[in-house]
């Protein structure tokens, strides 16, 4: 058969390009467009080059927000991943108890995010909230609207309550997918519970845990609604995370240029860290050298 070549197959890829263009590339280019211009109004614009980027990168408030953000996402991963795995390990393996646990765990995931913020405002209020009153009743001063530490504790509690179930569900699915023969072999080899976890369950959960880490990192790094409702970024700027800062800049002050430059940097940070986590988790414990 004669081999012949032309480029008609490319037409088959066009629909994908169109969809990606409309959904991602064009909006992103709009942001790029804003980030290099100073726009005063329709038809009034000045090209400013990298000026917004320079301004944004040296903004002290932004450094503070970035610091808050890394602290927050770091704590989220450190708490939610081990806690989620621990809960998944402790859950019943089958029967109605397993179903009940799954339903109870899934509940926080079904609540709209701004409602979650509202729930926790009420729950932690020092005058009428169950948790706020209880803690103050113990003689500890607790007010998340006044003390930065209290605000952090409240935001973390809310976040852990809201999202650990996702990690649990993923880890649980990963655990259930391990063939029974592995546990039988471990028993025959005399492995302790810890060794079974370390050498069978944990390695077999690599896939789901990679997804869990990526999802929790991205979500927590982009978090907006819940802390915005709960603390509004305060007290002061104590719980101002990147997206809260961004919205203040873009909507509150209408600084579209710096906000666009900042959005691009924000996007690159998320992309970079997701890639790093993915690479690390794919290679940990495999001994593969690249």
């Amino acid at each position, binding site marked *: 058969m004669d081999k012949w070549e032309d480029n008609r197959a490319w037409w088959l890829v066009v629909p994908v390009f169109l969809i990606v263009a409309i959904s991602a590339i064009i909006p992103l280019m709009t942001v790029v467009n804003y980030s290099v211009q100073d726009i005063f109004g329709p038809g009034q614009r000045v090209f400013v080059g990298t000026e917004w980027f320079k301004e944004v990168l040296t903004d002290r408030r932004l450094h503070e927000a970035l610091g808050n953000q890394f602290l927050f996402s770091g704590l989220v991963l450190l708490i939610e991943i081990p806690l989620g795995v621990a809960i998944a390990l402790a859950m019943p393996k089958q029967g109605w108890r397993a179903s009940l646990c799954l339903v109870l765990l899934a509940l926080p995931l079904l609540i709209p995010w701004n409602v979650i913020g509202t729930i926790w405002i009420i729950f932690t209020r020092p005058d009428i909230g169950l948790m706020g009153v209880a803690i103050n009743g113990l003689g500890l001063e607790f007010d998340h609207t006044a003390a930065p530490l209290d605000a952090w504790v409240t935001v973390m509690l809310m976040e852990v309550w809201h999202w650990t179930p996702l990690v649990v569900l993923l880890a649980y699915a990963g655990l259930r997918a391990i063939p029974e023969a592995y546990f039988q*072999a471990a028993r025959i*080899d005399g*492995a302790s519970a810890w060794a079974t976890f370390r050498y069978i369950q944990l390695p077999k959960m690599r896939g789901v845990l990679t997804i869990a880490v990526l999802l929790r990192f991205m979500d927590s790094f982009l978090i907006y609604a819940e802390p915005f409702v709960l603390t509004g970024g305060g007290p002061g700027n104590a719980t101002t995370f990147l997206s809260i800062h961004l919205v203040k800049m873009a909507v509150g002050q209408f600084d579209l240029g710096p906000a666009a430059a900042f959005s691009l940097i924000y996007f690159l940070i998320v992309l970079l860290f997701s890639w790093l986590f993915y690479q690390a988790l794919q290679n940990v414990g495999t*001994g593969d050298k690249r």
Partner: protein
Amino acid sequence: MAEIELKQIAHSYLKTPVRDEDWALKELDQVWIDGGAYALLGPSGCGKTTLLNVMSGLVIPTRGRVSFDGEDVTERKTEARNIAQVFQFPVIYDTMSVFDNLAFPLRNRKADENTVRERVHEVAEMLELEGELKTRARRLTADAKQKISLGRGLVRSDVAAILFDEPLTVIDPQAKWLLRRKLKEIHERFKLTLIYVTHDQAEALTFADQVVVMNEGQVLQVGTPQELFESPAHRFIGYFIGSPGMNFLPCEASEDGVRIAGQTVSLPESILEKIVAKEQKLELGVRPEFVRPASGTDRGSLETTIRAVDDLGNYKIVTCMLEGLEIKMKLPEDWALPEVKCRVNFNPRMIRVYADGRLIG
């Protein structure tokens, strides 16, 4: 190493077994002699794996006792039983090197590192895994992984028996053959008790000294491959072992033999005297290997019609019809056959008689 004895073992996975089908294992007694190579043969779902798990302690039987060398271990946990088991799919510890995989059972039992190193190297040498000791186990091929599973059983010097649960299912044919030979070699060298579950008769017959045939939770026959082939104790074994299976022909007793569809086959005296109860359903069983076309003058041959001839390379299967009964013959490929009508006779030493499905003579 030890002799494993099962006394009146029965097991059901249900809490309250009522009907016969509720039992995965119906009551059975079986002794596995120290150093024997056994195959446990039977169709899927016949209770082979359950029986294996009863021995390894992964399943505690509903009834009956398990003892190793006379010591009752029924309630003893798997890890305390000194038994090794190799599963259908290779179970390896992905994140460990081959060395660490092999060392794992010893390290769990707090063996000192010198012993560990010595044993691991010994086993690796035997299984031809020395070159790969430092490799991560997950990078190996399926047959090498299965060797590791086997190796984890072999490193422990105190194992009573190694149980195999269809270990060659996922291995490709060439490697299968090599691995099977390796197993035989290991058996000869260490005189370990090996119990090998399979549903593949060729595998069972080549591997074992003794084959245990199971069906529907019961042991039907224990014997050498030859015994199973020549004198299946049960209709089921006649069908299950051999390819094609044994011919079973309904018959009635007569003075000097049995009558099949109006024609007489004479039987030796020794068999005839065992046919007593007339109300039983009698069947004559003969392997296709022992059916031959008769020359016209042979006495006691049966008049049949050839329906089909299947050529299978170095032999052919001839299907003959005798008034609605099928008789299969397995003949060398170059055997000349008549056109349609064919008289056949049976090797008299190889004729078996079954009453209600069980061998009587």
